[in-house]
């Protein structure tokens, strides 16, 4: 045994105390479990084992379920009590097993003390047990390599724990998980850290918000960014704050804008290098949109990019008169980042007023656009505008997903206006725009291939039906790109709205829509789908029809699964190839958030917020 422990030491383990094996949670291993290959779950590939019958989970087949991974005594006990006889019988396998155990303990020990660095964020797919940015990686793919839960065993998933946030309203948060700790947010700018295995809180924070905030669409928050020993929260009163990851204490707090003029943050910030990038909300109040970057250490603002160009700047002439001052173009969903080019890809929202084009003649740059910004300076590299001179509230604030395919560097964005766009991310050139839902607003394309609005698509005083409606074919709900199936999965709805003008003068802090919209009775029922789109062609390959439209985002995993939720409160595991539901769980509240996956102690979990709670699921 001593030599074997020595092998462990070689991997950085120096704390083993073989004389104290008590207190370890051990279960009898199944023979099939021991016979499993030692491939870690993130080493995906066709030959990777499906571990549906392995009670130990896929992380390390030789370590019993429930083992405290940092506890070397347990490792020793596992070796002694359960592996010993088999070890004695098969020396070579023994050595391999111990090596795997050693790597596990070393990795976990290292990770538990490591902080999230920019390098870790760049290489986040190499540690699939963690989920360190809003979309899981800078690419925005919301794909987890974890494959312990897979098409063969998803039917047996069970709820692992539930955390009640004590908040009412919608939960839109995507949790982060770093080294066994889950960080998430809830309404009214609550933030909390939980033991990711048990759901028990480590700390809780709630912002003391002013009484007169008026966020547009619920007192929501979509999540945190993490870097170093801090998590970062954008607040409904337009502050950016840094919290200590260990205590939740406020480390710094900066004011980005005046909430009384309708500015707020609901977005999950993005940590890039040593800065925190965040985009403002307020397109319903006529704010002038911006994207900010703050020094992660100090909170000092490093740059601000106004999404509506000022006098003398390119694009300023796309606004009539003084309309640019209240031009909107907020930036309220988390963008993506390409480390190879140091470009941030950040989408923008509607011009203000959102549903009335009168008074702001022109294309209204850079509303409803995708902006490629230098991450160091905030300088614009290129832009692509999805909907020019928008009059239907079709914010382009969907996650721009980076895909490398066929030797091309692409961005795929399923836009709120009903078209699925594929763009060359090196230059912003449009490659294709294909409808993926019911659209009536465009019959033609311009020379670049961009759908152009029909003249009669504008709102009228008596009301005029247009598809999609103001909520769009999709909205902020995060999509996923599964590199294994090669498909882009997005939540979509077919709903048409009656758009009726309702002119409003701009008044600071007051709603500034310029139009009313409501669902067209004629278009009932409104249909909700999960759609699988082939980015190469824009063709919808598979679809699952929900009972009603849902606001849930989508996750894909190495297990050949796609996860999403519905308005009726179900969390559903789909076969990524067919979109056939394999499993579901009724959570008791509608879903407005996107799922994510993580692993602790070698066990994969899938988590999603629904109703007022965070739910996690795993294998029995």
């Amino acid at each position, binding site marked *: 045994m001593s030599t074997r422990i020595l092998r462990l030491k070689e991997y950085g383990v120096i704390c083993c105390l073989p004389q104290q094996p008590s207190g370890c949670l051990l279960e009898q291993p199944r023979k099939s479990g021991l016979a499993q290959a030692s491939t870690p779950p993130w080493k995906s590939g066709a030959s990777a084992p499906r571990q549906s019958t392995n009670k130990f989970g896929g992380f390390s087949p030789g370590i019993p379920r429930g083992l405290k991974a940092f506890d070397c005594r347990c490792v020793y006990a596992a070796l002694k009590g359960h592996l010993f006889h088999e070890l004695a019988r098969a020396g070579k396998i023994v050595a391999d097993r111990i090596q795997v155990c050693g790597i596990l303990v070393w990795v976990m020990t290292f990770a538990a003390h490591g902080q999230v660095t920019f390098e870790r964020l760049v290489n986040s797919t190499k540690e699939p047990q963690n989920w360190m940015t809003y979309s899981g990686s800078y690419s925005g793919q919301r794909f987890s390599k974890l494959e312990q839960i897979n098409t063969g065993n998803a039917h047996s998933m069970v709820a692992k724990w539930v955390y009640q946030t004590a908040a009412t309203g919608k939960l839109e948060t995507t949790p982060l998980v770093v080294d066994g700790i889950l960080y998430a947010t809830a309404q009214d700018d609550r933030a909390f850290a939980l033991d990711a295995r048990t759901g028990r809180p480590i700390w809780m924070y709630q912002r003391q918000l002013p009484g007169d905030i008026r966020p547009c669409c619920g007192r929501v928050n979509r999540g945190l960014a993490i870097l170093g020993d801090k998590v970062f929260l954008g607040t409904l009163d337009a502050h950016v704050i840094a919290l200590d990851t260990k205590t939740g204490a406020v480390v710094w707090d900066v004011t980005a804008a005046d909430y009384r003029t309708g500015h707020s943050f609901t977005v999950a910030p993005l940590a890039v290098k040593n800065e925190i990038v965040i985009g403002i909300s307020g397109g319903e109040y006529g704010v002038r949109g911006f994207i900010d970057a703050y020094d992660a250490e100090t909170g000092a603002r490093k740059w601000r990019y106004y999404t509506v160009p000022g006098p003398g700047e390119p694009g300023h002439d796309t606004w009539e008169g003084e309309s640019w001052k209240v031009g909107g173009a907020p930036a309220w969903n988390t963008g993506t980042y390409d480390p190879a080019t140091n470009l941030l890809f950040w989408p923008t929202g509607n011009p203000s007023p959102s549903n009335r084009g009168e008074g702001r003649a022109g294309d209204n740059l850079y509303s409803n656009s995708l902006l490629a910004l230098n991450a160091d300076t905030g300088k614009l590299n290129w832009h692509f505008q999805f909907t020019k001179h928008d009059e239907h509230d079709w914010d382009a604030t969907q996650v721009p997903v980076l895909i490398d395919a066929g030797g091309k560097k692409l961005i795929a964005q399923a836009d709120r206006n009903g078209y699925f766009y594929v763009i060359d991310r090196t230059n912003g050139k449009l490659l294709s725009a294909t409808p993926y839902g019911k659209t009536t607003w465009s019959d033609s394309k311009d020379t670049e291939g961009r759908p152009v609005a029909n003249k009669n698509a504008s709102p009228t005083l008596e009301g005029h039906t247009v598809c999609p409606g103001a909520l769009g074919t999709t909205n902020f709900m995060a999509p996923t790109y599964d590199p294994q199936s090669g498909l882009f999965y997005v939540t979509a709805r077919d709903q048409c709205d009656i758009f009726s003008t*309702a002119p409003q003068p701009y008044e600071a802090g007051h709603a500034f*829509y310029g*139009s009313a919209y*409501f669902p067209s009775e004629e278009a*009932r029922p*409104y249909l909700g789908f999960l759609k699988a789109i082939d980015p190469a062609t824009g063709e919808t390959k598979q679809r699952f029809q929900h009972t*009603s439209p849902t606001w849930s985002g989508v996750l894909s995993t190495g297990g050949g699964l796609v996860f999403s939720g519905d308005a*009726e409160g*179900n969390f559903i595991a789909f076969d990524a190839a067919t979109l056939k*539901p394999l499993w579901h769980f009724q959570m008791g509240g509608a879903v407005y958030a996107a799922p994510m996956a993580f692993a602790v102690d070698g066990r994969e979990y899938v988590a999603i917020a629904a109703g007022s709670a965070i739910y996690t699921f795993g294998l029995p």
Partner: protein
Amino acid sequence: MAGRMWVVGVVFLACVANGLGQNPLAGDPKAAKAGEYEFRINCALCHGLGARGGGRGPDLTRAQKKHAHADSDMFQIISNGIPGTAMPANGTNGQGVGMTDEEIWQIITYIRSQEVTASTKTTGDAVHGKTLFYGDGNCSMCHMVEGKGGRMGPDLTGVGGSRTREAMIESIRNPSRRLAWGLTEATKEFPQEYESVIAVTADGKQLKGVILNEDSFSVQIMDSGEHIHLLQKDKLKSFKKSRESAMPKYDPDVLSDKEVEDIVAFLAGVGAK
């Protein structure tokens, strides 16, 4: 300007606090115009573009309102909603921006301005309508009014206070055009509608009824015998739902225009209580 706003704010607070029911903008045509647009944005979804009822919410042009008489009542209702109904509190429907106090008063001013021109005349014979409802019209086989009647369709006790005459007539003549709303779940965007369903169970039993609630995996059905069936869709041989209402279409040869007016008058009378 700031000073004036402050004074106005104090007036608002005073009005709300002591329930005097004074609308500081009462009769102001500019406020009514602003209120019209606020109404379109915030209220027309249910109450219709001209406040004349949208088939969901009550016709607000009627001077006699079920829940609010004084302006202060209206202010409270717009601010806080009506518990147990689809009327949400200001700013809580999750979509769009809530209203400021000033904007709420503008909307009240607008609604009052519409009442002036609204017709409140009802033509039917409510007594005869009641006879029809519980008798030859067969309405009470499926609908309940004041605790008497069937359960398969929506309870119509309050419908006269929450639907326009036109909407009620349309529902009788063409019930499939707008299916009635059923169960509303707190965090769900759309309420369940009264859809019809035919399900065949694994043992070949056919169930016909209306859907009480449904998700992708389960459905709750009430049949014409008022039995509730709780079904898992994957265990059914077939499941077919339809937006053709389970309620028969009452053509003029079944119920004359006069008889329909009588039933509407009966429902309006009950609903106004």
